[in-house]
């Protein structure tokens, strides 16, 4: 009994530590600028206002920034998962020569720190005339995600029973049909988990957006938030409000796919 209480007390403290920074941001987002300026960021709130949300929405143009983010994130997630699942299907279900090498090669790209590729990518995008477009950003995200998604999906598809595919072949299904009607539906938990993950990664990206985009009105939400910081002085309450707004889409996606996400984590846990 004591052990159990101790466990709960300890875990409550740990969870509080985990949640505290988020709570702190939410509290700051409801404080007025004069309150923050006079009492400091760390003090207890002396004011309550919704105006911070209004100024984040209007001054940072967060609505347009969110639209830009979604315009990049949704196609990038769909494209990269679609391509990765086709690649994984081929590599996992057919004995393609050098398939191990191909897979390792794709994965190797992810071992490079992205900073190394900043100059080549920024120059290349400019060379082909797509600098400062959202298409460039989508292409970069698809390119970077592909290796890792293929690797994860490959592992999942490899473990699907051979007999299902054989039965489908006997029923007269070709590789395309087997992919779309048999393998893809069975891969859904893994796709949902990866979808939620990649959505968060792409949505929260800052590096690539400021590398390939120059115009303020095309910037996704992360650089727009950075734009709330002034040259010297920053309205932390407005930044906090902007951050809370920017977190909504990812939280929504996570809640929607939560079940798959937890299920997806257990993929391959038991052999």
């Amino acid at each position, binding site marked *: 009994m004591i052990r159990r209480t101790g466990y709960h007390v300890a875990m409550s403290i740990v969870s509080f530590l985990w949640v505290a920074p988020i709570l702190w941001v939410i509290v700051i987002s409801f404080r007025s600028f004069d309150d923050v300026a006079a009492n400091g960021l760390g003090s207890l709130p002396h004011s309550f206002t919704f105006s911070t949300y209004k100024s984040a929405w209007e001054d940072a143009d967060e609505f347009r920034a969110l639209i830009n983010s979604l315009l990049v994130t949704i196609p990038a997630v769909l494209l990269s998962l679609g391509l990765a699942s086709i690649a994984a299907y081929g590599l996992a279900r057919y004995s393609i020569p050098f398939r191990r090498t191909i897979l390792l090669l794709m994965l190797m790209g992810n071992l490079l720190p*992205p*900073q190394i590729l900043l100059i080549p990518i920024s120059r290349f995008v400019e060379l082909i005339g797509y600098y400062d477009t959202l298409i460039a950003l989508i292409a970069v995200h698809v390119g970077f995600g592909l290796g*890792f998604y293929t690797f994860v999906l490959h592992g999942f598809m490899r473990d699907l029973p051979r007999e299902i595919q054989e039965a489908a072949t006997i029923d007269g299904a070709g590789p395309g049909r087997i992919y779309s009607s048999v393998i893809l539906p069975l891969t859904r938990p893994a796709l949902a988990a990866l979808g939620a993950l990649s959505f968060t990664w792409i949505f929260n990206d800052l590096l690539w957006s400021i590398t390939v985009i120059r115009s303020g009105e095309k910037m996704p939400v992360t650089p727009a938030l950075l734009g709330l910081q*002034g040259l010297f002085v920053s309205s932390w309450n407005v930044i906090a409000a902007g951050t809370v707004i920017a977190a909504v889409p990812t939280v929504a996606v996570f809640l929607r796919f939560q079940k798959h996400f937890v299920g997806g984590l257990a993929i391959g846990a038991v052999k």
Partner: protein
Amino acid sequence: MTGLAADRRTFLKGLGVLGAATLIPGCATSTKSPGSSGGASSELSLQSNLSSEQAKAAMENLVAAYNKTGGSQVKLNTVAAEIFRTQLPTYLTSANPPDVYTWYAGSVADSYAKKDLLLDVTSVWDSMGNYSKAMQSLSTSSAGQKIFVPTSYYWWGMFYRKSNFAKWGVTPPKTWAEFVAVCKTIQSKGIPPIGIGLGDTPWVASAWFDYLNIRINGAPFHRKLLAGEGDFTDPKVKAVFTKWREVLPYFDPKGKSFPFQEATSALLAGKTGMFLIGTFFADSAPKDALDDIDFFQFPIIDPAVPVAEEAPTDGYFASKKAKDPEGTKKFLAWLATPEAQNIYVQSSSGTAIPANPDGKSADTPLVKKGKAMIEGAAEITQFFNRDSSDALQPTADAALTKFLDKPDQIDKILADWQTAAQKVFKA
């Protein structure tokens, strides 16, 4: 895979590397843009780093006013200051760069002129004869061309709350001895006399180095030192730190842990006595506290040294590859007029002073006093990074932060600083 989600600092560090690397010739393969159209284009792009709410609105007003005058239409593009700083080399070396940029006068602009990236705006200066000599030399590249158009400046001073000084029974000091006496009095009331904010903003300490150096050794020595013609192990530099040690016990011990914006809150709340800072801090003050704020000039140490003040100058430069050089120059010439500068000063936070002597600054006692101080100064310096380079600033941050922690190791700190600075100058 977490590479996609690494934190902002790592990203920006990487971007800094990107920015630096694109400046290296040969590494930056200049690409030809497929859509580059010859001849005059009707639109100029202005890349601005003034992203805070007020400054952004002021820029929008400014651009709207110019677009009404006819001529090329200007399109304002505001990006976050931090992104702008790291991406500026990329912007300038790209095939199709923005035409006009907000930036700082002095060697930070000259470093781009040395790479032959900036438009020669000598003809714009024909209409700017009334600008001060200091402004002219700040806007001239080392090759002797005018490359910059200054539009406003601000000043640094020792800021305090009038009501608190009255409560503690002290008056603004003029000399170093008086300053130390004021510190003693404030400390006796249980308040840390000198506020500072070095967490996240370690460059604030450079203001102390700058001011002590220009008060003890004079502005010419300071400029030479920052240009790499001096040596940080020079006994004259050590004298700066010997003086600094005299007031070190009066610094707010908490100042190392928070950024200058929090240090401003501490000053306003009466938790510190004075704060050596630029006027931009006023943007982070509640409006009702502003009337109670005053400043005094950094105390005079050696009356024989001509008085110099720090007045960082802001303005614009243009890309050498500007699509419509004549239209660009016309816009820059307009920015140099008192009318344009009045529009900006009136709608921005109000502590900036127009660079054009005929421009009207905000009509508050504080701004009048600041303007008089700068105009009365025999020499003008800007700030550590603006008088040297953004690359040298981190070496100063490292040395000064260490000095504040371990003042007795000054000889070793200065030797390390010299080594680090040498690397920057040789790069």
